[in-house]
């Protein structure tokens, strides 16, 4: 673990300064936008009425889909009560992953493909 941290730091030091600054700002912005305080992940904020996203959600494995629904319900509950979750339940930076992206990419790829075939 320690080894990994050292390695990570090494890589970060090698990055250009501008990108390092940008990453830091992004990190700050994500924290400041507040969804992590509700225990949400970034892709929980996507609107599931948009067709592509609805399709990607349909393709999510059952457990991941349920976990998403649960996080959203918990966040709604907090929002109604005008509170945040206790600090230890906030989404950690390393947990805030793109779980929907692979599916969404695939859906978008298929849509583009269909369009290209339809325009032939």
């Amino acid at each position, binding site marked *: 673990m320690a080894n990994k941290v050292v390695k990570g730091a090494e890589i970060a030091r090698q990055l250009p300064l501008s990108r390092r600054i940008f990453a830091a700002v992004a990190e700050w912005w994500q924290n400041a936008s507040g969804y992590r305080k509700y225990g949400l992940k970034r892709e929980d904020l996507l609107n599931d009425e948009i067709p592509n996203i609805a399709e990607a959600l349909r*393709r999510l*494995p059952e457990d991941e889909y349920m976990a998403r629904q649960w996080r959203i319900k918990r966040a709604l509950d907090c929002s109604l009560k005008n509170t945040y979750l206790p600090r230890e339940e906030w989404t950690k930076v390393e947990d805030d992953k793109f779980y929907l992206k692979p599916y969404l990419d695939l859906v978008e790829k298929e849509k583009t*493909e269909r369009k290209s*075939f339809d325009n032939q």
Partner: protein
Amino acid sequence: MVSTFSTVNAIAAVLLAENSVAHKQANGRRRRDSPSYTLGKPLSSFYEGPAMSHLSRIGKTCHGSHILPRVASSIRNSRLYSMAAVPLSETPKREWKPIERKQPQPAQITRLENGMTVASIEDYSSTTRIALYVNAGSRYERFNTLGASHVMKICAFLANKENSALKITREAELLGANLQAKNTREHLIISSDFLRDRVQPVLSIIASTVKDPCFYRWEVNDRKDHLFTDLAAKDTDIHAGHYQCDFTTFTPNFETIARCVRLVMVLILQLFISGIMEAVHQVAYRGPLANSIYCPSFRANSLFSDVLQSFAQECFTGPAMTLVGLGVNHDEFVQIASSSFEGISAKRPGEKQKSFYVGGDARWWADSPLVNAAVVTEGVGLEDKDILAAGLLTRILGGSPLIKYGNNTETSRLSKSVSEATTSPYTVSSLNINYSDSGLLGSYVIANAADIDKVLKAIVNQYRSVAEKGISNDELTRAKNQLKAYAAMSYENPASIMQDLAVQAGYTGSYKSPVDVLNEVDKASVEDVVKVAKRLFSAPLTLVASGNIEKVPAL
């Protein structure tokens, strides 16, 4: 609807003829404006001139009603392109030449580096047919992959790493090719028919489906409806009940319209046979041949992509595949195949599990006054030297009528003995199924439940009498003629040539041409047939019956 349309067509044809005459005679100016025929131009544009008056004339004089003018207006408003494309000027003169037919080349077989067998016959036809036979039928399923072969058939053209499902469909459409997937107990068969010059793209589509299939969970789930439809179709009791209703209400007196009944029985036969034959395999065999070709219902909801993926990895290897082509140049075909199927593993499949014939008895109630039954014994496998003698034995026992509505009591031993055993309508036909290592030979019968004991005894007695008392020379000659005619007829059909080629090339690596087969049939003697009958009918029989089984006897 159809008749209305054909009326419209006929009227329009008359009109067009009239119209062209009118153009020729009077309407020169108009003719110069429009070409002699126009494709894609609405028909209504031709109906401004004298033709309309003609139409109203027909309407008044011939029929005296207002129907025709209304039809005319519907023609005017519709866009009947094909009629619009009829040349209005004189028909072009054609010279008919006889088509030159080249002699088909003999079959050629090549083994690729990855172990795949490529076999093809060049018959100089304008279409090419190719089929990929993969040893991935239901007999290759194990407990955890049970039903995978059936689901694989349904999911054959879903996304893989190269193509999406949409791309496969659309490309096939653009190429004018059709894609089919079938599963049997031995093989998963992916086949396609298309025009000669399109071997490369079609073969690359077919290769992609077995190279890296993805079996995305959502796509497989979306196809589950097809699976349930197949399973419902297999559920013969439902069909029997459904057809039985028509049957009993429509035919109060069985004997008077026995001929009609026989036709209906053929229908029932087709619906019943899958359920009965599944049971026959289950009872007759221990080992993988007992596996159903249908996905078991307890697996229908739990077969997910990982199971399919592991089945595919196990079965989709070079040595397990045979690619056959009809109407292709062999060298070209081999070259295209080796480039398209590059990257398929050359891993030899494990030792093939043996099936053992045990025989036995299974029967179940179904809502029907009839009994569907199969009485079979172990037949011969494809590599058995007695395979032609067994074919002759089947013909001697007798198949379904060769003449429509014929009773077949002259040429079929089974029909004759059953007709003596019962006065009610029946249908009986011998069956001969060959797998790579074993087979089934016997008969399938539908008869009235009241006489079924006599019918089944008559059938079994026939089996015994062939084995014990032998057969006459006349019978053998007739059987030979029937078998030769059947063989020659099936070689007329490209699909059966393909199957024959695939099976022979896949199992033996060589191909016996139709002529050789016919010659070998001629060589068979009475002793050969009696010997094979003795051997086969000494094994314990398998009896499977469904319907009103009150009087079905014990074996």
